[in-house]
């Protein structure tokens, strides 16, 4: 677990989601997900934001990163993330957790809270054009996740 997670106080987490509730599936794509769920880690309260960038021809990753950064989140949980979004989120100091497939947002949060997700060091794909991943949740089991730096 990283230092940030150990700190107390309000910590907001973003999940890429296919729907507007915690029972929705995690959207495997970050830049082109349907919704962002912004969850307060402490209270469990959440809100959903529709992803306006889902249909733009390019720059979806940056658009998504901007929406998420404006919310002041500390971490992003998703399936795959492209290089542009990865780079700017990383520079903004937002932690990126990938490789979450075939899970509801609620399940993903439980796995995250148990400390079983690892911070990503690399983007995992070209962004919105990646299909849904295989293998479900295993730390390091998503697309390209097993790769060593």
């Amino acid at each position, binding site marked *: 677990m990283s230092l940030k997670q150990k700190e107390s106080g309000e910590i907001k987490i973003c999940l890429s989601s296919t729907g507007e509730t915690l029972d929705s599936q995690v959207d495997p794509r970050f830049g082109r997900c349907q919704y962002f769920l912004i969850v307060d880690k402490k209270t469990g309260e959440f809100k959903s934001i529709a992803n306006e960038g889902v249909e733009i021809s390019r*720059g*979806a990753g*940056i658009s998504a990163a*901007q929406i998420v*950064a404006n919310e002041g989140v500390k971490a992003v949980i998703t399936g795959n993330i492209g290089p*542009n979004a990865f780079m700017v989120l990383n*520079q*903004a*100091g937002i932690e990126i957790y990938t490789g979450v497939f075939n899970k509801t947002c609620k399940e993903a949060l439980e796995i995250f809270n148990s400390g079983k997700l690892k911070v990503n060091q690399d983007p995992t794909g070209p962004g919105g054009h990646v299909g849904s991943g295989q293998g479900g949740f295993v730390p390091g089991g998503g697309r390209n996740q097993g790769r060593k730096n």
Partner: protein
Amino acid sequence: MKKIAVTGGKGGTGKSTFAVLLVNKFVKQGKRVVLVDCDIECPNDYLLLGRKLSKPVKKVYAKFPELNKLKCQKCGKCVKVCKSKAIFMAPGQHPQFLKELCSGCGACWIICPNKAIRAKSDEIGKIFVDKLNKKFYLITGLARPALEETSPIVREMKKFVFDFAKKIRVDYIIFDTAAGTHCPVIMALLDNDFAYIVTEPTPLGSHDLNLILGLLKKMKLPAKIILNQADLGNKGSIQPILKKFNIKKITQEIPYSKKIVRAYSQGKLLGFQL
């Protein structure tokens, strides 16, 4: 001087082959022609003609934003105005410019209230000119690899082409576009008298025909249909689309021909007549 675009939506329908055949026809009629390869991400008209790219005659520059951090007040206006989503700003931090996504439109340095953004020129591509004979000039544009927004190269190349064409007094300029309906294609299609759409009677061909006709309608650019490899596939598949866009006839059908394919694959299309 007539300006004609050759486009098609789908890739591999024979746009470049047709463009070269069109030039060959005009040259045979004694006309002077400039063929412009606007597929700047992977130009290949020169290959079909058995030529090599020589030294570039011109480098293409575009202006990109550069931040003066001392002047920047982190107001975020540049982020909001950017239609290319090429600017990111984390709360409380300076904006970051993503050059690969930037179209160089200049909105950010115009809107910046603190004059903190400077326009900095950078090379994005090259232009090559090849004189094949007295009547036939080939102008090729080439984008810098990994550049995402390539339409500024087409824009700059067209300026060059119009100046060049006036000087040497050409009868026709043929703009051979890339596949697709995105910005570099739109840029190549602008300012033409009409466009030939090279398509094929396949599901993909008709799907993309629908897209390109939709674009040309928006641009109010008249379309003429060239059906390549007309005897293969299912001609019926494109009829409903022609009807939808009120196109009465197919201008020319080109049957599959081993002779063309052979000339194409050997780079021997120069002078080839149908």
